[in-house]
Structures are given as structure tokens and as C-alpha cells.
């Protein structure tokens, strides 16, 4: 159904009885075509003042037409609406229909809660039940509030998640190759992280730095995110790093199970996808195989090298980031040092940037090799050495290159500021790669 023209102009005389869509308005007529996200247009966003591009208030929005920043805004509105319209609080939520669930929200149905209440009553443990519900309520509310007024970090992470979601959606649409397998995949992995609570703990141990805020321990999540295809799901645990007991229960194990069930899919998409999705798949594969690699050894956790596990990895990162490279390798503390503990792990969020340093993934994942070799040659731009590699690998790298940089217009002003300055300032370190322009 069409959006009402008059409503948009602010004077539809049919009001709630109008046949056309009043996005966010009160009409109950059939509405909402596919991909449309409706939200209340009344909500102004003081919190997002830094956001430059405001999506137009009252119109329906197509997810694919939005840049991530706008998508985050749409999401914020969605979450505000959720809160204000008194929806059932314990639900999963997605940015748009057919998209994957946002990490951190698990479904609990009215019946499940009710049954617990009845059981509690029978066992005379009603106070415990009430306490649990209160705790759950507070927890979900806190998450929603965090999303309504996202801090810079949260926003960046969200953008990373959304980009991954969009990418996987695009993959599906362009796919054909993967067809059924792919949808299976999204399905199987959806909303369950690759790595449960364990990994989070490991992180904590090695870095010893408590998460700064609710979303602090994103490292786990973002690592998962690099999966790209599989990733978004993996993020689940992570956006809200420190899940309550309830959450970690539901998360964790399921995630593993879900993925384990789909080994075929995994294999298939990585081999076929070598060209397109090569690098993200590589990362995931490595992690899924239980390799402790990235965050494995607490001992290395002290400096920046620790963050990226192996020296090679570090060199990769230098390669990608071009100019600041020497700084990074030598005096890692400067760039990715202590302040980075929280956020440099987030760098893994970008599949393109760090997805590749995995030699074990060679063969299938041509891209892995390519970038690795580039990295070791210390050239500023990974693309330069590509020509010498196989055509397949070349394709991969080309795709990678597009992922390596964030287009200038998609960076937030805060991110630009960070990239322009000599040093990142604590708490504001961008998790997305810089724009190409910053790396020349």
C-alpha cells in the first residue's frame, strides 16, 4: 500500500480511516509493504545530534537505500517505539523484516513467563520469580535504552552489525549460487553467537580490563561479526557483552550447536564463495575449528601484538592501515596500546580488514594468501601486489579492497576526527576502517 501523500504533508482528513499508509500514525488499514520500516515520526533524536544525515521522518524507508548511519537512526526510532507503545518487552527484534535478529535480545513468550509464575506459585517461590522478572525487565530495558541513545562506540558497533546484515542479505539476493544453502545458514546461525560465554571470559582474563560499559566486551561479538556471512548471528552474544545468566544460557551453547549442525553449508559456501566471501569465511572457519588463535594466549595479551595474536596479523594490519604502519608494529602501545584493549578488538569487526590473516585457510580462501603476502611486503596498499597472484585471488582482493576502506561519506564526523588526529583518543577509537583518503 502507498504512503498517504496528504498524511506526509500533515493534513490527511481521513485520519485513522485513511486507506493509505500513515507511517507511525494511527490508522489500522493494511499497511507496510515489504522492507518498509515504519516508525513514529514524532520522535526527535536529541541523542543523535552528531548524526549528520537525518532520515526523513514520516516516510517508509527501504533498508537497502539507507546508509548504515541512517539505518542506525531508524533502528533507534524503532526501539523507542517499542518502549513507548508498551509492546511485550521480552522479544527479539530485527532492523527490518527478513533481516537477522539484533544481537542481545532473546524471545521469551508470555506463556513461558506465565508458566514460570504458576510453577513458582506452586512451589511457594513467587518472590524469586518476581525478582527474576524484575531483573529481566531491567536488563532488556537497559539494552533498549542503550540502543535508543547509543554511545559512539555502540553506534559504531551497530553500524558494523548492520553492514554485515545488509551484506549477507545482498549475498542472498545476488547469490543464486548458494541458494538454499545460504538461507539455511542464516537460519541456523541466526541470533546465536559462535562463541559463548567462554570466549568472553578468556578475553577478560587476557586483557584484564573490565568492560567500560554495558556493551563493553564486544570483542567476542565483533570477532564473530567478521564472519560476514555467518557473522551477524555471531554478534549476538556480543553487542551486549556481559549477558546475564539468562542470556548466556540461551546463547553460547546453542550457537555452537547451530553451527555444528551445518557443517555442509559452511564448507559449501566457503569453497564456492572463495571469490566473494573468501576472507570472512576464512576467519570464521578458523575460529569455528576451535583454534585458540586470535585471543588464545593470555600471555600475549599485554601489548598490541597480543590483540592480534600473531605477528603476521599485526603486519597485516599495518599493511591495511598504510601510513601508521611503522608506528603500530614498533610502538604498538601508541596506536593500539592500552586504550585499544576495548576497541581495537573491534577492529576485527571489519571482515575485509582483518578477516584474512589466516594462512591455514589457504587453498580455499585465496584471499587469505593474497593479503598475507601483501602484508609481509609491508606495502601500504594491499592491492598493489595482487597482480602477481592468481586471478581468483585477484578477484578476492578486489572485493576485499572495497571492504577495507569505509567510504568517506559513511564515516561519522567523530570518526573522521579520530582518523585525522595523530593519535586516537581513548574511548573514541573508530572500529571501522578509515576511508581510503586517510591512507595515502
Amino acid at each position, binding site marked *: *500500500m502507498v504512503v498517504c501523500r496528504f498524511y506526509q504533508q500533515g493534513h490527511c482528513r481521513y*485520519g*485513522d480511516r485513511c*486507506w493509505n499508509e*500513515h507511517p507511525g500514525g*494511527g*490508522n*489500522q*488499514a*493494511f*499497511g*507496510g*509493504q*515489504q522492507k518498509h520500516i*515504519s516508525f*513514529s515520526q*514524532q520522535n526527535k533524536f536529541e541523542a543523535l545530534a552528531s548524526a549528520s544525515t537525518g532520515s526523513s521522518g514520516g516516510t517508509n524507508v527501504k533498508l537497502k537505500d539507507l546508509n548504515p548511519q541512517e539505518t542506525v537512526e531508524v533502528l533507534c526510532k*524503532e526501539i523507542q*517505539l*517499542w518502549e*513507548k*507503545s*508498551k*509492546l*511485550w*518487552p*521480552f*522479544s*527479539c*527484534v*530485527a532492523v*527490518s*523484516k*527478513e*533481516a537477522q*535478529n539484533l544481537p542481545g535480545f532473546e*524471545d*521469551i*513468550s*508470555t*506463556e*513461558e*513467563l*506465565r*508458566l514460570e*509464575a*504458576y510453577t513458582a506459585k506452586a512451589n511457594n517461590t513467587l518472590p524469586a*520469580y*518476581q525478582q527474576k*522478572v*524484575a531483573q529481566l*525487565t531491567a536488563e532488556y530495558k537497559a539494552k533498549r535504552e542503550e540502543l535508543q541513545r547509543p554511545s559512539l562506540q555502540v553506534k559504531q558497533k551497530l553500524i558494523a552489525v548492520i553492514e554485515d546484515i545488509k551484506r549477507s542479505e545482498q549475498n542472498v539476493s545476488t547469490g543464486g549460487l548458494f541458494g538454499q544453502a545460504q*538461507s539455511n545458514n*542464516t*537460519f*541456523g546461525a*541466526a*541470533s546465536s553467537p559462535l562463541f559463548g560465554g567462554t570466549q568472553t571470559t578468556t578475553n577478560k582474563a587476557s586483557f584484564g580490563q573490565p568492560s567500560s560499559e554495558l556493551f563493553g566486551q564486544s570483542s567476542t561479538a565483533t570477532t564473530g561479526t567478521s564472519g560476514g556471512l555467518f557473522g551477524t548471528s555471531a554478534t549476538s552474544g556480543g553487542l551486549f557483552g556481559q549477558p546475564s545468566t539468562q542470556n548466556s544460557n540461551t546463547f553460547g551453547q546453542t550457537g555452537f550447536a*547451530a553451527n555444528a*549442525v551445518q557443517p555442509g553449508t559452511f564448507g559449501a559456501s566457503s569453497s564456492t564463495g572463495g571469490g566473494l566471501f573468501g576472507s570472512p569465511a576464512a576467519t570464521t572457519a578458523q575460529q569455528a575449528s576451535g583454534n585458540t588463535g586470535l585471543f588464545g594466549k593470555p600471555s600475549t595479551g599485554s601489548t598490541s601484538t597480543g590483540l592480534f595474536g600473531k605477528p603476521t596479523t599485526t603486519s597485516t594490519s599495518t599493511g591495511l592501515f598504510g601510513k601508521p604502519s611503522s608506528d603500530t608494529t614498533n610502538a604498538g602501545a601508541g596506536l593500539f596500546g592500552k586504550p585499544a584493549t576495548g576497541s581495537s578488538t573491534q577492529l576485527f569487526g571489519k571482515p575485509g580488514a582483518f578477516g584474512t590473516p589466516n594462512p591455514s585457510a589457504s587453498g580455499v580462501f585465496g584471499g587469505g594468501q593474497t593479503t598475507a603476502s601483501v602484508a609481509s611486503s609491508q606495502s601500504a596498499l594491499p592491492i598493489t601486489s595482487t597482480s602477481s597472484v592468481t586471478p581468483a585471488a585477484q578477484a578476492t582482493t578486489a572485493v576485499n579492497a572495497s571492504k577495507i576502506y569505509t567510504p568517506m561519506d559513511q564515516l561519522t564526523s567523530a570518526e573522521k576526527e579520530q582518523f585525522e588526529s595523530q593519535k586516537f583518543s581513548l574511548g573514541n577509537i573508530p572500529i571501522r576502517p578509515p576511508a581510503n583518503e586517510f591512507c595515502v
Partner: protein
Amino acid sequence: MTLFGQNTSFGGTSSVFGATSTAQSANYNPMKDVEVTSPPDDSVSSLAFSPASCPSTFLVAGSWDNNARCWEVQANGNTTPKAQQTHTGPVLDICWSDDGTKVFTASADKQAKMWDLNTNQAVQIAQHDAPIKTIHWVKAPNYTCVMTGSWDKTLKFWDTRSPNPMMSIDLPERAYCADVLYPMAVVGTANRQLVIYQLENQPSQFKVIDSPLKYQHRCVSIFNDKKNNSPVGFALGSIEGRVAIHYVNPTNPKDNFTFKCHRSNGSTAGVQDIYAVNDIAFHPVHGTLSTVGSDGRFSFWDKDARTKLKTSEQVDQPISACAFNAQGQIFAYTSSYDWSKGHEGFDPQKMKPRIFLRSCYDELKPSKKK
């Protein structure tokens, strides 16, 4: 501390869980429908009418008071309680066998029972590791069975004589809602998962569908193609006052759409109250559908014309379930608390579950305008 929304009463405009009992009695039956006698003592989880093969019409209801009840319904709407059976936990779903001699009940006590109405005996036919949320009768040319979906993340098929399932299929998540219309079955689960099964020869997974809705799945109902009378799609309802009409193999992508429902009209304040869609039923003759919601209203819709046919007045409690009888003459709906405002919104002293019957054949005729 606010647990479920700002206050325990619905919305700002009208207090459904009003403080005064006089206000309540005034609008417990605003549609002036026929009330079923001897309703359950606690909320009604599901309603089902006897199939067309039955010589007379019966209505069964599963309830949170652990009982399943059966009434005989006369043409004038008079009801006579006939029998009841008890589980050791709340009854979460109920269905009939195709010949109308048996009723199947799914319970939070992790069991499903087969209730023989002729002998009024009930025997256990299924066992899960967690409460059973959905139960459906499957009638195929070469087999018959009962399909149960549970929070233990399995879908099981039982031939009613063996203690072991004929088949068990893993679900991606806890089963929240399901429907069967041979040869199609659909299961909606927690965390927005949706799986289609085909039942020919033997049940098997047919397709995984990306959810067309953004929030928690709540109810699902399969519909037939108008022309060849075979199942082609389903309507899926969520907690976000929204229903998706989804064709499994849409000829045109635009065939699939969602529509909003069960929302307050308080658009002047800028924010609506949005309620869960608790149940969806398709009219057996017209192919139009009804939705019922936590807002205490039922609505009738024509999905092909994409129009609303009717919305009811607001009942004093959420409407938790609905059903059409086999001939499409009677619409049954039940007003009973659905836990949508948590334990704080629950007042068993004041909230008396009620079941209403409405003559509906004409109201559900498809819209003429296209």
C-alpha cells in the same frame, strides 16, 4: 518499578483492567454475543470446533486451569457443558481428529493426551522434554498422526499407539506456534524462526523462511488458494500488532505483505499502544480471516482485497484465542488474561474468563471492492 509498561491498565485512554467492577461488567460483552456456559476457571489458551464430519457441533477449550472442556453448541447458540479432562499442568493447545471422535490436548506438563469423547477416557500419547506448545492432527492418505511442537525445540509425530514418536525433527528454537493443513505444516519459533514442512508420504522439512515480521512470533494460520483449494501460504501474527500474509511460493513478490492491527487509536499523542496478535483463524468458506489481540478486540479482514471488514468494540480483557466452526457460521472468541502485562496485570479475582459465540457468516463475506 514498572514491570510491563507504564501502568497496569491498558493504554491511557481506556482502562481495561478498570478499578471498578461496575465498569467491568458494563463492557465485558460489548458485542452482545452469546456467552458459553460454565467457562473455564482460568485463561483460555485455545479453542477448537468439531470438524464437519460431526453430526452436531462441539466446542473444546484448553485452559490454564489444567483442564480441557467440551460443550455442545446448538444452532441458536445455546451451549451445554459435556465433559472435561484434566492434565497436571496448563493446557496450551487443543485439536480434533478429522472424524470428530477424539480431541488431543497439549500441556505444560510435557504430555499430550488423546481424549476419546465416546468413552470420555484420556490416554497419554506423547511425551516431550519440555512443555508442549502446539498440537495438530495430521491426516494423510497413507498415514495419520499427531504433530506436537515443544519448547524442547523438537517437532514430533505420534501414531497415538506407540510410546515412541514416528518421527522427531529438530527445530531451530522453541516452538511458539504452528498450523497444519495437509499437505503443509508451518512452525513459528522463538527468535523469529519459521519453518515449512511438507507432509506427503512422510513429514519432511520443506523450506526455511526469513521472518516477514520484526518481533516475536505469536500465532500462525495456513490458508488455501481460492481456486484449487490447496494450502499456499500462511498468516503470521507477532507481538507487534502486525500480521504478515505470506505465500510460500509467491507468483509475484508483492503478493506478500504485512498489515498493522490491534493498536490503539491514540495517534494524536504521537504514540500508539501496540498489542500482541494472540490468534488468527481463517474462515472455512470465505477464506477471509479473523485476528484477536491483547487489546481486547477482534477484527475481520479480507487479505485479497487487503481491507478490514470489521473491528469489534473493546472487551474488558485481552482476547486470547478464537475459532470458526466448520460451516463458518459461528465465530468463537475468548476474553481472558494473556499475561501480556505480566503477573502485575493479573487479577484472578476480577478476571473471569469468558467464551463468546457470534454469528459471523455474513460479516466475513469478502469485500466487493478490489
